[in-house]
């Protein structure tokens, strides 16, 4: 029996007079991989920004259910979303270019530090041990993603595919229950896309997470997702398995235009 983990209930978001998200409702269940698709400007990233509380001005409700505790995300600050077990990546890779890859991963573990700035200045035993534990964790994840050898290099100058991986690796540092990926395959070549496909499966298995993603590469979405939500002009079109989505009239119309 699948349990819901993320519930959107009648979410609306306006920018001035423009309706970016219009009465959108859908539910993501624990352990699923769900794709959010729609033509350009359909409001997909806006949905992500509402879920992760970058936008607070939406109407309707967004709930996150973790260990049977249901929370209204609106009550949670944007910087505390990650503590709920919900973490995201960005459409344009948002990494720290002049930090090493390892340090970029440690930023993902920011909230797991218990020692404060004074212990860091004094380099107390506890602070050093804590840093070491988190570094080990980062090593594990980097090895899992096959980029361990690069750990001490700056992010600046790395190929795009590697940067995308680092961003995913950073989300894994926070022990996420659910990962939200904004166009993970954009800008990757076919081989890298295939690799990413496997990687997302592996992540779901190994880290036991739920994944919600936006992607334009239809082949990728159809292969990987358990269910797909299609939206257009911020409106809900359909939510179904990839096969049924392909057959759905409304979705075809949104992408190809109506025959009439």
């Amino acid at each position, binding site marked *: 029996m699948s349990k819901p983990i993320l519930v959107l209930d009648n979410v609306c978001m306006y920018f001035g007079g423009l309706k970016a998200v219009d009465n959108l409702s859908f539910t993501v269940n624990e352990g699923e991989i769900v794709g959010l698709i729609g033509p350009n400007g359909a409001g997909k*990233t806006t949905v992500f*920004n509402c879920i992760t509380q*970058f*936008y607070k001005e939406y109407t309707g409700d967004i709930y996150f259910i973790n260990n049977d505790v249901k929370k209204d995300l609106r009550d949670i600050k944007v910087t505390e979303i990650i503590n709920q077990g919900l973490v995201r990546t*960005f459409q344009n890779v948002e990494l720290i270019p002049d930090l090493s890859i390892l340090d970029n991963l440690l930023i993902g573990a920011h909230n797991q530090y218990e020692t404060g700035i004074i212990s860091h200045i004094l380099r107390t035993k506890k602070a050093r041990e804590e840093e070491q534990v988190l570094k080990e964790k980062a090593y594990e994840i980097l090895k899992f993603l096959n980029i361990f050898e690069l750990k001490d290099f700056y992010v600046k100058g790395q190929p795009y595919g590697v940067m995308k991986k680092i961003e995913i690796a950073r989300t894994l540092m926070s022990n996420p229950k659910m990962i939200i990926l904004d166009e993970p395959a954009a800008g990757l070549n076919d081989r890298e896309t295939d690799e990413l496909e496997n990687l997302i499966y592996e992540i779901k298995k190994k880290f036991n997470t739920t994944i919600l993603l936006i992607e334009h590469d239809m082949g990728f979405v159809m292969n990987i997702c358990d269910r797909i939500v299609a939206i257009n002009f911020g409106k809900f079109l359909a939510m179904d398995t990839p096969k049924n989505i392909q057959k759905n009239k409304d979705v075809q119309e949104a992408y190809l235009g109506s025959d009439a």
Partner: protein
Amino acid sequence: MTDFLRLLFNSLETGSVYALAALGIVLIFRTSRTTNFAQGLIGTFNAYIAAFLMLRFGFGIWTVALAALVTAFITGIVIDTLIIRPAAKVSPISKQIITLGIIMVLIGILPWFFGVDSMTLPRFIPTEYSLTIFGANLRYNTIFVIVLSTLLMGAMFWFIQFTKWGLATRVTASDETTSKLMGVPTKTVTMVSWATAAMLGTLAALFVAPRVSVYANMLLTVQISAFFAGTLGGFSTFFGPVVGAFIISFARNFTQFYISDIWGNVLVYTSILVFLYFKPYGIFGKKPTKKV
């Protein structure tokens, strides 16, 4: 009443000077993306030239002022070509430090070219020509400064708003890369901006000179006030800083006279800070939009 009028005339005069300097700073901020700390010193440098010409050859104030404006134009072009353009790719903060470098070069040049004796410049209209209104003395020179500055600023706004070159300046200010791709001669625009800014600074220096004599730091207060004016009015418009300049000049003169000589400035600055907390982009400024 007398005190009030005296303060009013005085504030209008200093306000005009601040406004000229502020316009120069905004012009460069908008076209070169840098806060030009050398604005004051570039003006001072050309005021030195004027004073030197007067001392050495006995020219009148109008002649040397004209000469100083010409040299200011040249100074602006030289600085842009030799220093600012090669540093086009440098970060804005580093560019600010480049303007500090310009300050140091000019400070080194001053005693070398002009000697260490202090020089003076007279008013454009001699002091004896003045009116008295309700007991307050109003010099014709003050009227001249206010009127000329207002006319100049009016002409500049007209130029920026209604001519082809003004349009080029505005588009360069809003997005240099796109403007360049659209065929706007951004290099010329930047160069002319530096030249114009240098002339505005020089004019401010010529107006201030009779009151303080000509020395290296003569424009320090003017320059700092001009920065404050830009912040108060908002750097994203050309007229905001002018309004800011007059507000600062009035607030300062009146608080210093009616409240306290020491705490007047502190009070004005603190109130502007509090104001900025609520209007972070100045009176007329707009918040730039950012995308997640």
